[in-house]
Each structure stands twice: as structure tokens, then as C-alpha cells.
């Protein structure tokens, strides 16, 4: 039987973007439904989980044993040959700069915060489409535990990640070019020592179009992975990761490692969407390509985007105004002011680096950019 119920907002996807949007909207008194098709949030993991303390703080999330795998105190950036720039913030401060989180626990924790703020959460619920009504509301078509269900709402928030279909429902141009989506693979490994620092390797030889990483994961584990751009290599990410682990300057360090988990995904190193709203629809997080195009980090931007979206909805819904694309553009403008303009600037820097045809010069520029990005003086530290 198809039932109809009413909400102010239906959020599709309970990653960091969706659960934060939902929580903030509920804290502002809205009736919010948050749906996710998964049975266990964050799983299968498609993320390394590095997030700054500052990002958690801004989102009102205190670091908690439930989701923190290990604290992080700085960065090491390597060039192709292993020459390194180290920024160990333990020289300046005692508290961690950030954390590597377990996304299975982190996403559940954020969802629980939303649920405690009054959000109704439905797992195993796939959002399939919507039908608009004359009065400016829409019916969202859901499939919950395999059964069709409809909910009436005013605004749908597409927080459905990289695979976003919600934007496509609204006719938005969400397509990412192959040249701007990094194909990533990572392994959780045992028997490799790390020292509280995120280690990042630039260089076409190891990760054409992207970079390789070695992150501490706590409990004596680490994550090793990389992202590549497939328009500039014939080999897949798995081949490149093998090549890196066997032949790079890290080979000796990695040679006895044991593989505990295999994870992967796509990271948009693209510009944010030029249009992030349609009638009754706003997009946030990976769905709107809110990802840092230099580092590929998207947790911070998803949390920030969620706060901006939730706050906007808290202001907008009580006005009773019809949620047309034009009225919702105000969300996009706020996002640009608070975060988006800086992301566009990063996109231009990244595009400029990859316009460089000479591989040694491009490698050098990427290395310099990454090394300075993580310095205490970087203008982008808060993106």
C-alpha cells in the first residue's frame, strides 16, 4: 500500500552532508525525514576518513572514541623520488590537528546526532524519484525495505553522494568528466609503521593525475591508496597501487604489509556544480561536487555544506514561499559566499597545474602546491 505523509524537508542520503543538513534543519524546528538506502551507514567504505579538528568543531561534532581511529598531528609530502617536506604541528601545539575516522562509525554517529535532534531516519530506503504538485509540494517516491512508499514534502535535499540521481531528477547538469574524476583504490594494511602524520606522494610515475597516500589508521594499522585520472593512463588504479607498493621509495616500508580491507571510489577533482538548485531540490556534498579539487577531501566541505543548507532551510521554509529554483538560489549564493568562492579558486589552481604539459614540471608544481597547502600559513587551511 502506498501511504503519504508530510515533512518540510526530505533529505536523500545520510553521509556527512545529509545528516548534517537534516540535524541543523531539525534544530531550527523543521519536520525532517532522512533516508538512506544502506543498512549500515558508511559501508562499504569509500573514504580514507581524514578530517580536520577544525571541520568537526565548526559542525558542532566533538571527537569521540566511537568514531576516531587515530589522531593526526601533521603531514609529510613526498616528491616522486621520496624527497620530503614534513610539517609536524607537534612543534607548535599539543592537541591534534585532525583525525582519521572510521566512516562506518562516523556516519552513524552523525546520523544519531540528527535523530536526537528530532529527525526521522529511515534506513534501507531508496529514493527513486518525485512527482510535483500544483501547490508547490512534491511526492517523493521511496522504496523502503522493498515496499513502495510516498512522502509529501516541500524541499528534497540531494545529499546522495557521487552517484547522485536527485540532481538528475531535477534536470541539473551533474555529469563529471572522466578527466575530472579520480579513480581511487586503497587498502587497510597491517605491519607498517606510521607516526601520526598523513603522508602524501605526488608524482606522475606513481599516481598520474592524482597522488598516493599512506595514512595511520590506529591500532597499528595504516591505509595505503592512490587516485589516478584515467584519461592520462591506460592502467587501472589497482595496477598503479601495485606498482607504487612494489617499486616506489616506499616499497621497503610496505613489503611485509598484510591486507585487511579493500576500498575505493571516485573523487571529483572537478568544479562545484554551476547550478545546485532546481524547483523543490537543493544539492549538497559530493552530489553538488563540493569536494576540494586539490586534496580530494570532501568530509569538511560536506559538513560545512550541510550547515549552510540546514540553516538556509530553517530560514526559508517558515516564510511559506514556494520553493522554486529561483527562490532556492539563495542557498547557492550563501554557499558561494561561505565556501564556494574559495573552492572555485582551488579548482583554477588545480586546472592550471594539469595544463602543464611537461611531466617533471607538473610533478614539481603539484608537489609544491600540496606541500604549501598543508603549511601553517596556507590561505586554504580552512577549506
Amino acid at each position, binding site marked *: 500500500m502506498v501511504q503519504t505523509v508530510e515533512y518540510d524537508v526530505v533529505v536523500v542520503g545520510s553521509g556527512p552532508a545529509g545528516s548534517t543538513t537534516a540535524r541543523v534543519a531539525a534544530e531550527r524546528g523543521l519536520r525532517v525525514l532522512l533516508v538512506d538506502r544502506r543498512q549500515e551507514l558508511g559501508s562499504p567504505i569509500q573514504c580514507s576518513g581524514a578530517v580536520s579538528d577544525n571541520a568537526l568543531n565548526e559542525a558542532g561534532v566533538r571527537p569521540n572514541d566511537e568514531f576516531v581511529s587515530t589522531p593526526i598531528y601533521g603531514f609529510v609530502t613526498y616528491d616522486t623520488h621520496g624527497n620530503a617536506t614534513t610539517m609536524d604541528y607537534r612543534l607548535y601545539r599539543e592537541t591534534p590537528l585532525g583525525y582519521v575516522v572510521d566512516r562506518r562509525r562516523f556516519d552513524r554517529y552523525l546520523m544519531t546526532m540528527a535523530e536526537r535532534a528530532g529527525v526521522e531516519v529511515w534506513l534501507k530506503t531508496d529514493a527513486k524519484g518525485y512527482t510535483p504538485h500544483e501547490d508547490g509540494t512534491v511526492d517523493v517516491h521511496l522504496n523502503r525495505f522493498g515496499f513502495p512508499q510516498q512522502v509529501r514534502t516541500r524541499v528534497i535535499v540531494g545529499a546522495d553522494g557521487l552517484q547522485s540521481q536527485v540532481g538528475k531528477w531535477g534536470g541539473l547538469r551533474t555529469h563529471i568528466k572522466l578527466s575530472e574524476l579520480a579513480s581511487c583504490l586503497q587498502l587497510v594494511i597491517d605491519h607498517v609503521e606510521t607516526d601520526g602524520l598523513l603522508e602524501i606522494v605526488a608524482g606522475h610515475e606513481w599516481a598520474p593525475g592524482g597522488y598516493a597516500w599512506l595514512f595511520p589508521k590506529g591500532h597499528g594499522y595504516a591505509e595505503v591508496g592512490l587516485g589516478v585520472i584515467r584519461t592520462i593512463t591506460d592502467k587501472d588504479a589497482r595496477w598503479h597501487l601495485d606498482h607504487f607498493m612494489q617499486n616506489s621509495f616506499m616499497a621497503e616500508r610496505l613489503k611485509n604489509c598484510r591486507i585487511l580491507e579493500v576500498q*575505493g571510489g*571516485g573523487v571529483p577533482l572537478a568544479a562545484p556544480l554551476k547550478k545546485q538548485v532546481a524547483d523543490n531540490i537543493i544539492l549538497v556534498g559530493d552530489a553538488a561536487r563540493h569536494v576540494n579539487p586539490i586534496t580530494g577531501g570532501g568530509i569538511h566541505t560536506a559538513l560545512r555544506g550541510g550547515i549552510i543548507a540546514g540553516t538556509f532551510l530553517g530560514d526559508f521554509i517558515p516564510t511559506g514561499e514556494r520553493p522554486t529554483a529561483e527562490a532556492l538560489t539563495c542557498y547557492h549564493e550563501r554557499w558561494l559566499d561561505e565556501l564556494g568562492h574559495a573552492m572555485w579558486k582551488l579548482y583554477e589552481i588545480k586546472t592550471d597545474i594539469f595544463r602543464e604539459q611537461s611531466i617533471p614540471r607538473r610533478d614539481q608544481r603539484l608537489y609544491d602546491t600540496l606541500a604549501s597547502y598543508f603549511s601553517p600559513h596556507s590561505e586554504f587551511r580552512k577549506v
Partner: protein
Amino acid sequence: MPKRPPVVFYVNWNACIKCGACIGVCPHEAGFTTPFDTIAVDTPCDIACMACEKICPVTAITSRLATEAEIAAMS
């Protein structure tokens, strides 16, 4: 550019790590997906850009030309 002939994708479920990258790069309208977070495998793709095959980090996707019957069933 001449239009490429429609193809049908095959996903090797043993290799697939359910990462969703193939859907992220797919230029189709909404819904060209499977319930397992990959691009559709039960219907021909008439764009045939092959971006999904390329983005896959573990080369789980392969393809074959669609048959006349499959193409006829699309419209």
C-alpha cells in the same frame, strides 16, 4: 563523430568493490543503475562513451555489442 553502436555492460561482481564511481561518471539520465550501486547491466547503453569501464578502479566492467533484439526492445 559517428554514433557508436549500443553496448551491454557486464559487471564482474567478484571484482566490484561497490564504490559507485561508474555511476558518478555516467552521462545517462537518472536511473541507468543497478540496485548494487553500479551502472545498468540489463539494458543496452546507447551512449557507449565507455567512461564507466575506464573509471573502475579494479576493471570489473566489460562490455559487448548489443544484439538487434536488445536494441529493438529499448524503444
